[in-house]
């Protein structure tokens, strides 16, 4: 028997919980999973990475290789292909539907195609690639000071390193820029990083659980990592990465949100109404990090 996991029509961080709930329900049994994206009209990098994470978790759970029905809309299909999604998905899913053969885009809104991150070497490649692709776009289209584009690479590097250092498994990163008409009426750059690893709670439990007592859980773990900058290592130099990302985003009026296990934490600027901490969500494997940097200097609506 096959259990259906619905992929939302508009698949981004806002609709991710629908997907997580559907996945949690499907994953509760031992049946084969069918990820149904045929009606999906749009997916953000966060959605694409999240879909791979779910596929990896389903794949790793020992059940039959999950199925994926591709979007019916050829424009969407072509975009997913250009974003490098199918290259990664083919390793996890039995794909149903015709996938167009296109190279990941060189001249498009895809700044970094969906890229696997397993080791430090992958982070080097990601940082190198993004600096060649992103600098012109960050400065000309988002109005970010050319000197500050290096901070973007640093933030990306630190976000990816969370996978290498803590997840205990591989993950993915994707970077895209686009016009956010409805939400912000500005251009934005979106970085999505996700893995199906052990998550923040598991990583920090040995050193932080006692300190939080009854409050300990996915939410407290995210709070410890993002707000308090704690790390599983006693070395005082650890925990700088997320702190550095926060500093960079705060300077450019950006947003960070991290989802892990059953909780999600966000540090949102004035243009966003995301809740600072949400607990009791559907369980979802690993950690998902979302960074958004908006276009500068045109005033927030």
């Amino acid at each position, binding site marked *: 028997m096959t259990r259906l996991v619905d992929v939302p029509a508009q698949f981004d961080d806002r609709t991710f919980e629908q997907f997580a709930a559907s996945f949690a329900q499907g994953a509760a049994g031992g049946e084969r999973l069918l990820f149904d994206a045929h009606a999906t009209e749009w997916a953000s990098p966060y959605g694409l990475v999240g879909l791979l994470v779910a596929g990896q978790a389903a794949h790793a759970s020992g059940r039959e290789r999950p199925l994926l029905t591709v979007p019916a809309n050829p424009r969407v299909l072509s975009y997913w292909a250009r974003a490098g999604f199918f290259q990664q998905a083919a390793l996890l899913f039995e794909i149903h539907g015709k996938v167009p053969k296109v190279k990941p885009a060189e001249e498009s809104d895809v700044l970094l195609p969906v890229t696997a991150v397993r080791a430090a070497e992958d982070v080097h490649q990601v940082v190198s690639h993004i600096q060649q692709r992103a600098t012109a776009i960050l400065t000309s289209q988002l109005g970010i000071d050319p000197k500050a584009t290096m901070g973007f690479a*640093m933030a990306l590097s630190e976000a990816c390193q969370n996978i290498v250092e803590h997840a205990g498994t591989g993950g993915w990163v994707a970077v895209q820029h686009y016009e956010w008409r409805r939400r912000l009426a500005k251009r934005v750059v979106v970085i999505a990083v996700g893995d199906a690893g052990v998550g923040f709670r598991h990583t920090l439990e040995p050193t932080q659980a006692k300190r939080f007592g009854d409050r300990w859980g996915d939410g407290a773990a995210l709070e410890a990592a993002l707000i308090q900058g704690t790390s599983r290592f006693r070395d005082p130099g650890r925990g700088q990465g997320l702190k550095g990302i926060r500093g960079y985003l705060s300077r450019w009026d950006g947003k960070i949100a991290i989802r892990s296990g059953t909780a999600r934490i966000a540090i949102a600027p004035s243009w966003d109404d995301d809740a600072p901490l949400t607990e009791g969500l559907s369980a979802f494997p690993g950690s998902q990090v979302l960074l958004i940097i908006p276009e500068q200097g045109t005033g927030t609506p």
Partner: protein
Amino acid sequence: MRPIDVHAVLQQSVPGTYADLVTRPTGRAVRERIELTIAGAAVLRMDFSGVRCIDYSCADEIVAKLLRTVQVLLLRGVTDAHRLALEPVLQGHGLAVAIEMGDLLEVLGPPEAAAQVCEELLARRLAERTAGGALALVAA
């Protein structure tokens, strides 16, 4: 004292040709290679020319950890982008480094640590005060 070419050490430490000092394993590999060559030196000069980007993890692994044994760290070729990572790391550890800006030196780090580095530089005659009160590098 010849400065250590950090970019060259990076090339020797990781497979592939990269100009970015990123990730903790890379930082560790670079630092360990440097440590092999300095053998208990109290003063170390490092040249960051050619290094495009350094992230917090590498700044911590290389600069902060070298300062556990080295008393004075003189850095050259430091860009604004490098400072983005160096400043918070130095702040977090309460450490300071001297940055060569032509003939002058700028001490980067929290005030107490910066004052200590200034004293060391003067005491070791690596620097002298200019008439305007700035720190100038003494030619070796």
